């Protein structure tokens, strides 16, 4: 289990990236949802030993992440938000090299592991092609392959699906879903489906704070009966936004559908079956965080 207590971080330019974060993350897939600039990546980097915290603590079982970085790195798999590759290097080269860096010293064991990772991520056919020619999806699969090297007890995956097309994202989800349930996997994302598809536990982050945490089913239940829906004219949207707490609007068959948050049934609205998206946006609205909808 990963226990985070009172973690804070202010950057030199005054931006408060993490504000007293306290969070217990059990084994299994954990979804960290939040808009850009919420502090997700700061938290991920801190947990991945790449960044110092001003105060607070973080423990993976008995490993003190902030103090004993070496120990954590031995059991960490990290897929950063945006990464590249050494020029002209192939997945085979890189995975082998990373495996060595991760202490997989036995040569045949290493070879078997790299092969099976290549198969598993469906990169075996391109194992001898340069990574810098890969498409986004292939690169992300390579990223997860390297994160799986060794016996990670903590896997951190930062915004892995941003920019992937639906089929690639689906494939990526399948990959993630296979990761064992006995280890902590943190998936940071701003895409709600990532969490609803994969995560038994989740939290929503904004302005460097944890705004909400729990199991998706449970947070959805909490909001049941508070979300209402209406088809509106496009030019009337501004009026509704003044009158109601509009949490999101989207287009359906050319018409604008809005969801509003309300404890009572507003006139002219019909009840909406609550999903995680409603939870996410209503949480943000409650905390006065504007997101381009």
């Amino acid at each position: 289990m990963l226990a985070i207590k009172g973690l804070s971080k202010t950057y030199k330019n005054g931006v408060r990236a993490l504000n007293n974060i306290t969070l217990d993350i059990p084994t299994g897939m954990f979804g960290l949802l939040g808009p850009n600039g919420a502090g997700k990546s700061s938290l991920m980097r801190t947990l991945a030993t790449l960044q110092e915290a001003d105060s607070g603590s973080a423990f993976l079982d008995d490993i003190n992440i902030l103090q004993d970085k070496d120990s954590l790195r031995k059991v960490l798999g990290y897929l950063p938000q945006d990464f590249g590759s050494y020029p002209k290097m192939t997945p085979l080269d890189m995975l082998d090299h990373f495996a060595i860096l991760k202490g997989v010293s036995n040569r045949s064991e290493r070879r078997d592991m790299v092969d099976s990772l290549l198969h598993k991520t469906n990169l075996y056919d391109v194992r001898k092609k340069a990574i810098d020619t890969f498409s986004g999806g292939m690169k992300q699969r390579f990223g997860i392959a390297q994160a799986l090297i060794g016996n990670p007890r903590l896997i951190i995956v930062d915004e892995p699906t941003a920019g992937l097309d639906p089929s690639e994202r689906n494939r990526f989800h399948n990959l993630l879903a296979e990761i064992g349930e006995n280890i902590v996997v943190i998936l940071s994302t701003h895409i709600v489906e990532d969490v609803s598809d994969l995560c038994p536990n989740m939290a929503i982050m904004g302005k460097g704070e944890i705004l909400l945490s729990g199991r998706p089913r449970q947070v959805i239940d909490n909001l049941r009966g508070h979300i209402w829906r209406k088809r509106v004219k496009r030019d009337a949207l501004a009026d509704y936004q003044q009158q109601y707490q509009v949490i999101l609007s989207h287009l359906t068959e050319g018409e604008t559908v809005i969801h509003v948050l309300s404890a009572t049934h507003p006139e002219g609205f019909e009840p909406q079956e609550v999903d995680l998206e409603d939870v996410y946006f209503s949480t943000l609205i409650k905390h006065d965080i504007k997101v381009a909808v």
Partner: protein
Amino acid sequence: MFWTIARFEMNFHRRQYLFYVLSGVFFLLSFLGTTTNGVQIGGDFSNVNINSPYAILIKLSTMSVITLLGAIAFSASGVIRDQELKMAELFLSTPVRKFEYVYGRFFGSFVFAAGIYLAAALGIMVGEFMPWLDQERLGAFDFNAYWYSIWLVGLPNLFICSSILFCIATATRSMMATYTGMVALLMLTFLLETFNEPATVETISILDPFGATAILEATRYWTVFERNTLLPALEGAFLFNRLLWMGIALAFLALASWLYPFNINPSRKQRKKAALLDSDTAPSAPVAAALPAALTRVQQQFGLTTQWQQFWSQTRLEVKSIMRSTAFLILLLMGLVLIVANAAGNLGNLFGTSVYPTTAIMVDIINGAFSLSLLFVLVYYAGELMVRERQVRISGIVDSMPFQNWVMLAAKLSALTLVIVAMMLSAMLAGIGVQVSRGFYEIDVLHYLAGLLFFFQFPIYLMMVLAIFAFVLTRNKFFAMALMVIYVMFLMAAPQVGLEHALYRMRMPYPAYSAFTGYGHNLEPILWQTLYWGLFGCLLLLVVQLLWPRGSEDDWRNRFSVARQRLTRPMVASLAVVSTLFVITGGWIYYNTNVLNNYSTFRDRERMQADYEIRYQLYAELNQPAITSVYTEVDIYPDTRDVMIKGRYSLTNRSSEPISEIHISLMPELDLQMLDIPGASLTHVEEALGYRIYALRTPLAAGADLTMDFDVAWTTPGFSNNGHGAEITSNGTFFNNGAAFPQIGYQRSQELQDNNTRRRFDLPPVQRAASIDDPDALMKSGLGGSGRVNFETIVSTATGQTALAPGYLIRDWQENGRHYFHYRMDTPIWNFYSFMSAAYEVKKDTWTSPAGDEVAIEVYYVHDYNIDTMIRSTKNSLDYFTKNFSPYQYRQFRILEFPRFQGTFAQAFPNTIPFSEAIGFIADLRDPREIDYVFYVTAHELAHQWWGHQVIGADVQGSTMIVESLAQYSALMAMEREYGAEHMQRFLAFELDRYLQGRGGEAIEEMPLYLVENQAYIHYRKGSLVLYAIKDYIGEDNMNRALADFLDKFAFGEAPYPTTRDLISSIRAHTPAEFQDVITDMLERIVLFDLRVTDSQLTTLADGRYEVTLEISAGKFEASGGGEESAITINDWVDVGVFGAEDPLTGVPTMLYLQKHLINSNEQQIVVTVDSEPVSVGIDPLNKLIDRNPSDNVVPAQ
């Protein structure tokens, strides 16, 4: 739209630190280059005004090359930045036309490149006004010099290079390729420089993209006056060079625009990517059902074995990425070309004659070729490797991997080292290639490896660590580079402010190698310094470990807290151990340099020289007794590098006044253990300056004698900061009495000679020689002051070595493991003698005079290549000199090789010629077309047995003409007899070039030959030219008779000694009336000619003969001592020559006609008829006269 793009580009650079940092660095560099002596830009300008147009021009020209290093960051970055930041699409979707976009970009960045250059120019300009400058060396502020240099040289150079680099960047969109292009441009100029000889200079002037060669060529023969007042005219090769390269630049710009892919056509890389993408959109393979073996547990180990494995894997990765880059291959190739070219240039180092490519010389050549470029390569690659993970955005993954910091650091260090090692090894292969191609097979691979990978490279390795430290500290490529530049500037400038100690200034003298000693005597200090700085490097690396960037923290507070976390117990222990060893090694070095030895800086030694003069100059004219005989016992200890001297002088009062005080000067580093003058007491002693005064209880009456006994110890304890002198070595000791023996009276030779330095100590301008009219000075000889002495010595050395001194060997014997040699000279010699000791081979021969007297010839050598030439030269010269001048005064003539680090000269002592390993012994004389300078040097030194040892001038102006110019003349005549008159032209052309260049380096005033004040370019170079020319006018017999007369009158004479006036009157006595003016022009004035053939016409006559008509332009000038020339009327007899085809063996053209014609107007026509077909015709074709443009004297016959 052009302006919008340009403004966009400018706004970008305006917001970057880079421009300001670079401007600051370049401003500072040129400011220091103007206001201090430590930083030299483009050379040493100490003999001209600090702000002379010439100095400004050369500095600004040099700065344009240096600025390129910074300018590249602007010129190339625009296009590459768009690519990296994926901005190109944004731009390209706006309605901008292609050329507007490309040139807008270029212009916007060029403005900033020009900006840093102008900052450099400003540095020089501001520097000119600094109050601490030597006001004597400041001319009026000359804005025109800046204007000219900036607009004709600096900005065009930047424009040319920026265009080429911009084009490369556009075509490749790779910073690496662009940088390689820059290094290639720089290497090209270095390469061209090696061919900068009169024969090729015209071509080089045009090819050099920086125009520097053209400028140097235009100013090659400029005198001080011209350098202080003139700028080269924009004409000839310079003009053509500027036009050509501006044209090339514009062509490159056009090419850049053409190459720029304006529509967003995918590059090849992107197409490949698309292809991959397609193959990947196949329906996703069913996810392996049997769940991955991968997630079954694997063994993870983090022991030492794994760490080594990690290190190797990372190193392999780094090395692979370097090796795969084309840039690296290009660098390697360029390096190789540089070496081969350098070898071609440097192996022919004396009068165009090659030396054998010994491994020692090849190592020196490689070092010379690589010293600068290796530093660029190193700093560049250090920057690349250090930021690579961040640049390719993989640092997040890599940094969170479980390896120790040292793994990454060590891998990067190893990869960098490998870059250097690879370059050095390929340089070695190129060197071996050069050796083999010249048929030289004594290849010493170990010497290569030691020289190239260790001795020469050690400072570079340390620089590498320093560069890494700078990167880790600043985490910014350009700041780190700026730090490195500042550090290198500190290394150069520190001695100027008296900071010289090896403990804080890493200055690893490359140990000189000699066939005598191997790496020899300064190996020990170098190894200690290596250890010391090596430990310092380790210490830095430990600090680097603590500060190693891992993760995304960049601010210092967090970096410190990370460093604290890394300060583990083993780390603290390592820091403690390394610092302790560092301090101990430093202590040992300090003990050696400051306790066992006296630590003194260059500045301290100047101060001592000044003090010596200030305190004791008043005794310069003090009446002192003359040394009349010398008996010494000199014990040389090669193993410990010590010499013990016991000596006895007989002193005689040759004056008419009694002498009551005897003054003794001794080199301060020597230990005077005993000095005994009967009846004298020491009344004054200043050890630090080596000055002692002894008072005689009873003054020494006129004509009376006394003896002086002394013991001197010359020891070399431990090692000193600057290294002990190279005189005493384990094999190959060579010193003379001036360096080791007490001298009588104040010694003018110890005074500061440089007027700039003298002004700093408020000393009057140096008097290089006493006036020729000074009657007192006529009583002193030019060598050894007071007269001749009887000489006898017993020299001992270790067994296995031969010890030598002037005189004849009376006896040698071995005793107590030492070898003793007893020498005595049976006729008096000057008080000027040498001692040598080495393990020698000997070759002996005999020369017999027509009268039947035998002279034993002995060559003591280590290299056997040219022994026979030396013996042949000795015999032939003895023939010529004894026949034409006077008999040889000794029964023996010995040539003794000495190690190259003691100098590259030969020196004539009585019957004894120390001759450097580096000049004659390794000359490669296999090509008969080249000048046989071994023959020449041997003849020159032998001639000194006459000019110097038989007759010497008084110690006044012109004295060295009698010694050196006459030796040059004698050697030329011996050479002419051996090789023929046609061969002399090449030699004289070299002499002319050296003389004319020497005038530009004159520090005080050029003197006419007869008043020469020990100025080498006059007494050697001009001496050769004019004496050979005079011989040509008055005839060899007349000339030699004049010299024989001079000898007859003055040889072996006592004071007063002759002057050049006596010599000239001897010559005039044998000169026909019509050539008396020639003597005046050549010996008593500074006269130059400008002779050229403006047109020639060839007609075949009816009888099959050929008639050549030459149109001649002739000018004659007289120069002042400062170099100001004025035209004078010409009325001289000048050679007109017609030549046929070249002799295929010697390369010398056959002479069809050579006659003197009277030239008495500035334009003249001459008609000559010859029998065979002429190939070329010329006026003064053999360069007998001094002509500033000797190359236009001969033209093809048309």
